[in-house]
């Protein structure tokens, strides 16, 4: 609070680097020494340092662009798929088997792709107002779908043709000076990015936008362009990184860039940027990338151990390498991301280092900035027009004005479309049964997500928690040999534990729910495949699988003769899981719609501060909603492995996409406060029918799964846009009003 009265302002603050970066370097040196100690064969050599610098170069480049995005208080989850898609586009243009063009057209095509993705991200987030995490997560899934769809899951390699274009492919190789050219590229990009962010108006505008967008707008900063620009930087950096990978590999594989977004975001946050915006340094991000990659390497390379093996009665010491199984690395990096995100609010904002120094020196602790008491935020008035219409509507209009009307009508229409396309198949009862099975899993997830979304949070980890619960139950059944009931309890317990971690991070530690559950997204899936060592687990007691069977099958298992007639028809199509799902949905719907707990959820999601003032324990409400959501996902996981009689590590993939889309189509709002169980069930029906229709074999053509995922991603974006622009801002009504005004000469009186 003291101000210097001297005319010179003193030493100017550092812009490129600071104490944080020094700390990162020390940390890295320590880790490297630890790595060298654990695995001297690998880390002891200079090759290792070379390899580390080379492999981290691509992630360092992506971290540069991501720093701009995060400093703007945005997020770009799509870099990993852009990185992969660049390789595929390059291959399509360059590969002799496809278009067979030169390197330049391929590079131009890649940059065009990067620009397109950046513009789509930027437009969705700024002009169309879609939350950054949901827009870019969908872009990530769509991009991944394109990668798999275009490559058909196969690698594309062109080493022979690459020999004709050494000037480009040399970029991925070691140069005359003895180190890899990619390191040079990374350093150039870092230098350019650091200067732009720290020294130019563009950089200052970025910090202003991230710190307080409203203030930046008042100051005349074009914040939309600033944010679009950052998304463009991020996509271009991902494009450059993709081209670096192309130059090194002379080809591409569908796995390229898988989970790159996790490493890149973790790098930027560890590099000192704040997920709450307004902070970040490019050099710190690059060092962060090196550190994350070093941890990645240490985890992946493993360390040598001496195992004692008994051969022919003799104990023989065998040299071996202990490596972590498949899923462990993403799980650890997910944990790292969560820890890194916590550093800023809990260590830097509370000035812990300065406090420790003051305590050591016996001085009074430094003043901590006031946490803000009761902040005044604008009245939450969204959707004014849409609600007004709902209030004034009559008769059938009353139904149309319901937020879940769209989902109910769509579900009915899609059913009819299926009937017209394939009447033979659609009327066939086992088909309905198969549809209902897909529906059960999604409906359970959507019911859980409704609670979380209505309470104003989000859970991106539902698909991963589904896999985790399934994996835990399968592991208990197969490896531990537990009985089915205990295995189910283990699965549910593990799912609840994941939900509790989500709740703890989001509610107690106050992380934004999307980042807490994004961490869990990687951690849960990582642990799930870690448990089963990345293998499919199968072959356990059939009695467990009964929860995934039809009632008929259960009667047969219990040696009870099948009933006939009407009851027989029902037992023939109904399965335990459907009954279970209906039970959960009825209870959840009653609680949400009719009980005070449900009202508390809506109040919390509508205006958390108002709910707090009204004496509602919003922390408890949000925590229990996240817990319930994880429980629903865990139930879906248990049913999944019972139905397939096995656990597959890819179980529940893309289910977060389906689930969120179902809730939003069913009348939920991504901003919280809305969503009903009936709407979510109808929304889940819409998604299930779309998936079924797209995979319907019409005259010998079936759409591959990857393209279906791309399509569902598109639907999620459209659903969120409809929610924001039609339900909340009444864009249609405004258009109609404008049309009417221009056609009628007398202006309408405005009702004050």
């Amino acid at each position, binding site marked *: *609070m003291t101000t210097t009265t001297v005319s010179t302002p003193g030493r100017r603050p550092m812009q490129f680097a600071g104490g944080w970066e020094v700390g990162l370097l020390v940390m890295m040196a320590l880790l490297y020494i630890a790595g060298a100690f654990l695995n001297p064969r690998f880390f002891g050599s200079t090759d290792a340092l070379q390899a580390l610098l080379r492999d981290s170069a691509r992630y360092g480049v992506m971290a540069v662009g991501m720093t701009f995005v995060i400093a703007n208080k945005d997020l770009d989850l799509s870099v990993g798929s852009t990185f992969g898609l660049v390789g595929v586009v390059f291959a399509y243009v360059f590969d002799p088997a496809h278009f067979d063009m030169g390197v330049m057209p391929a590079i131009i095509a890649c940059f065009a792709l990067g620009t397109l993705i950046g513009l789509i991200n930027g437009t969705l987030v700024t002009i169309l107002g879609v939350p950054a995490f949901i827009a870019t997560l969908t872009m990530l899934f769509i991009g991944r779908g394109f990668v798999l769809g275009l490559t058909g899951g196969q690698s594309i390699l062109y080493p022979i043709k690459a020999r004709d274009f050494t000037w480009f492919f040399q970029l991925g190789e070691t140069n005359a000076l003895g180190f890899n050219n990619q390191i040079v590229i990374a350093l150039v990009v870092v230098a350019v990015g650091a200067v732009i962010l720290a020294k130019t108006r563009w950089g200052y505008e970025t910090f202003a936008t991230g710190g307080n967008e409203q203030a930046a707008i008042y100051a005349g900063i074009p914040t939309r362009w600033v944010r679009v620009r950052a998304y463009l930087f991020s996509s271009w950096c991902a494009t450059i990184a993709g081209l670096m990978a192309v130059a090194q590999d002379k080809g591409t594989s569908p796995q390229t860039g898988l989970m790159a977004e996790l490493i890149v975001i973790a790098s930027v946050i560890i590099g000192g940027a704040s997920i709450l915006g307004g902070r970040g340094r490019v050099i710190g991000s690059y060092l962060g990338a090196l550190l994350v990659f070093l941890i990645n390497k240490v985890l992946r390379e493993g360390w040598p151990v001496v195992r004692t093996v008994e051969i022919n009665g003799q104990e023989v010491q065998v040299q071996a390498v202990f490596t972590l199984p498949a899923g462990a690395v993403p799980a650890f990096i997910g944990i790292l991301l969560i820890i890194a995100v916590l550093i800023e609010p809990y260590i830097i904002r509370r000035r812990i280092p300065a406090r420790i120094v003051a305590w050591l020196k016996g001085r009074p602790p430094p*003043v*901590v*900035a*006031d946490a803000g*008491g*009761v902040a*005044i*935020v*604008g*009245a*939450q*008035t*969204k*959707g*004014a*027009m849409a*609600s*007004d219409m*709902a*209030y004034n509507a009559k008769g059938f209009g009353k139904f149309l004005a319901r937020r879940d009307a769209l989902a109910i009508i769509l579900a009915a229409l899609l059913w009819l479309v299926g009937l017209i396309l394939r009447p033979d198949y659609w009327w066939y009862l086992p088909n309905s049964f198969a549809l209902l099975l897909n529906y059960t899993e999604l409906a359970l997830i959507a019911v859980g997500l409704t609670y979380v979304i209505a309470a104003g949070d989000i859970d991106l980890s539902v698909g991963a928690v589904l896999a985790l619960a399934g994996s835990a139950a399968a592991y208990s059944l197969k490896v531990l040999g537990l009985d089915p009931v205990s295995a189910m309890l283990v699965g549910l317990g593990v799912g609840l534990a994941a939900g509790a971690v989500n709740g703890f991070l989001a509610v107690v530690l106050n992380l934004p729910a999307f980042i807490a559950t994004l961490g869990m997204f990687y951690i849960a899936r990582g642990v799930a495949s870690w448990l089963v060592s990345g293998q499919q687990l199968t072959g356990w007691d059939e009695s467990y699988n009964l929860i995934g069977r039809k009632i008929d099958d259960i009667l047969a298992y219990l040696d009870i003769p099948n009933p006939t007639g009407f009851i027989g028809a029902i037992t023939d199509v109904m399965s335990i899981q459907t009954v279970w799902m209906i039970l959960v949905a009825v209870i959840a719907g009653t609680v949400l719609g*009719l*009980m*005070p707990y449900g*009202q*508390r959820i*809506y*109040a919390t*999601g*509508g*205006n958390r*501060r*108002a*709910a707090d*003032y*009204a*004496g*509602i324990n919003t922390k408890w409400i949000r925590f229990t909603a996240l817990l319930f959501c994880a429980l629903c996902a865990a139930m879906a996981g248990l049913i999944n492995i019972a139905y397939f009689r096995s656990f597959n590590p890819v179980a529940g993939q893309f289910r977060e996409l389906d689930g969120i889309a179902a809730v939003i189509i069913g009348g939920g*709002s991504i901003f*919280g*406060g*809305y969503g009903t169980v009936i709407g979510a069930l109808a929304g889940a029906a819409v998604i299930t029918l779309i998936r079924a229709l797209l995979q319907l074999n019409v005259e010998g053509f079936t759409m591959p799964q990857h393209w279906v995922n791309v399509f569902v991603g598109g639907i999620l974006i459209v659903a969120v846009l409809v929610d924001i622009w039609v339900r909340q801002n009444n864009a249609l009504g405004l258009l109609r009003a404008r049309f009417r005004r221009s056609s009628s000469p007398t202006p309408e009186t405005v009702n*004050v």
Partner: protein
Amino acid sequence: MSDLAHGTPLIEMKGITKSFGAVNALIDVDLVLYPGEILGLVGDNSAGKSTLMKILTGAYHRDSGQVLVDGKPTNFRSPHESRDAGIEMIYQDFALCGNMDVGQNIFLGRWPRRGPFVDRRRMYRDADEVLQRLKVDVNSVYQRVESLSGGRQQSVAIARAISFEPRVVILDEPTANLSVMATERLLETMLELKKHNVAQIIISHRLQDIFAVGDRVMVLKRGENVGDRFIAHTTEQEVLQVIVSGTHDTALTADQALAEAAAVT
């Protein structure tokens, strides 16, 4: 209006001091409020008006000083405790849930229940009753709050406050976002409340509103009390003068100022 000044004060704050780090937000501030009185609280930005009110409701904790309600010392730890003592605050942004309807908002957090379910019939009936009593113009208890205009949202916030049957209502910048018409209606509502013997404190920058309905006006400046006046015996000019050039040392209470004025004439 000086007749109000006799009898037990409803609220008495004595020697309130509060600092945030190195910033002294309030220094030795006194405040009294009598039943049925409308007190205007004015002063520049950062004069400490909102801080003083948050200390009264328990949202902030004072560093020193006393808060007496009905002459009994109190120590509110949160706004819920002051609510039990009959003190209600209406926030500048109304603190309502836009996604819920008028009835649900009036009973926010304490929805009446029958068995495990929300008793919707009773909730809407009681909400309607409160609205009738206040004579505010909200069409229907079934309307979503986000579809109401700012003035009507405020009516809902006031109706919600009234439904707790408070003895003191604090309004934070109530006219800041209102149209002229809505301001008129608000002032009528305040007089209606006064008839029910509810004491009110208005924090406002608009002196004309305070002069329209207020009984007394109190001026804060840089965390200090620089005097108060009876509306009936002062002018906007004088109050502005106190805001601009008043100091803690030259501060007069309303009674002192009245006595002084009587001595001069």
